[in-house]
């Protein structure tokens, strides 16, 4: 009798586990999801969001946590501003990287570096969600509870050296990105959680400086 109860409990646990897992989307669900995201992404002129970054390395006792604010303005102004536990900002602007490291300012001309252009596109794409480019990535789609998940595996060998896989988690209702996970070649990853997102508020160009 007891064995049966345990078997029953085990079955329940298994089924719970399955429902919490990722489920593959059907072809129809994929096209609907992509359309939803693209409709929202197209409307984004500016975007600002708080973020918390968790760096996970297998050998550490706990993830390294940093946090700050990210601001994006069309077509390609982007700034990551870390506020905790240190002040560090990196701004992508007109082919330049502007850095402010605890008040120490520097600029790097990246000219028309191909890898940089690709990475910039990727960062902007991953925040707005608009990066469903089959030429660049092998993409797979999953459903979670209240969320959708897209996994991108770079096709380009150079990019693949840095990033094994990118996972974007979307809020199902809003069709916007809530989490970016960058997996490195080993089992280590960076997880960035986006919150307090504000879309299309007025953002002055002067924000994008170091």
């Amino acid at each position, binding site marked *: 009798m007891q064995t049966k109860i345990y078997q029953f409990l085990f079955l329940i646990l298994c089924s719970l586990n399955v429902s919490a897992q990722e489920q593959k989307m059907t072809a129809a669900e994929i096209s609907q999801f992509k359309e939803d995201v693209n409709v929202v992404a197209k409307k984004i002129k500016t975007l600002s969001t708080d973020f918390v970054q968790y760096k996970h390395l297998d050998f550490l006792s706990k993830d390294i946590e940093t946090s700050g604010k990210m601001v994006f303005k069309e077509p390609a102004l982007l700034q990551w501003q870390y506020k905790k*536990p240190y002040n*560090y900002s990196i701004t992508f602007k007109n082919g330049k990287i502007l850095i402010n490291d605890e008040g120490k300012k520097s600029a790097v001309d990246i000219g028309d570096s191909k890898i940089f252009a690709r990475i910039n596109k990727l960062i902007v794409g991953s925040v707005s969600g608009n990066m469903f480019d089959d030429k660049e990535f092998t993409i797979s789609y999953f459903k979670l509870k209240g969320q959708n998940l897209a996994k991108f595996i770079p096709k380009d060998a150079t990019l693949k050296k840095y990033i094994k896989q990118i996972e974007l988690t979307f809020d199902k209702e809003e069709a916007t990105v809530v989490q970016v996970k960058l997996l490195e070649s080993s089992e280590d990853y960076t997880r960035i959680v986006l919150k307090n997102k504000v879309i299309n508020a007025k953002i002055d160009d002067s924000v994008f400086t170091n």
Partner: protein
Amino acid sequence: MQKSTIQFLLINCFLAIVLISCGSVSKNYTPKKLDKTSYTVPYFTDSKTDYVYKTNISVYGNELTGIFIAKKINDTTHRIVFTTEFGNKLMDFEISENDFKVNSIVSELDRKILINTLREDFRLLLKKEYLIQEQFENESADIYKSADGKRDNFIFISKKDQKLEKIVHASKTKEKFTLFFNSENDIFAEKIQIIHQNIKLKIELNYFKTE
């Protein structure tokens, strides 16, 4: 990722390094009777602690910043990882007194001269036990001399509060590089500087608490 251009510049600087030998180290220290035969460094010794530092590396006027992580993974070995602020791993080493393993390094930084330099720096930074052969002093510190192959390490312990202040790594004639430590409690170093005397290389580590 976005750092690759900076890294490229830095590497070129590294490659352009010409080792200039000049001057000699004058030891203005007063010899003193040996009061101990070994010294144990209190830093980087706890295997439960993740030692995480914001890092600035300056090489010939170029700056590379990121996060330096050290963790004691067994009795003899530390794992060292250097990432960008975004978290991408730039280098991943395992280092002990006699062993050194490169787990991974981005191709832009994969240069022998750079790896060998960092290997020496980190080996000394994480070295726990020093055997003492001679002792000196100056106005502010007791100075212990410890042989290190063909070279020597000079360990400076402040007279004021008995804290490890700096370690000078030197050949028989000149100083090669110096580790400076700032510590509140003498268990944990909040700020560390590694300054090279013969090349323009400076590594600064500032501990940050993750909340």
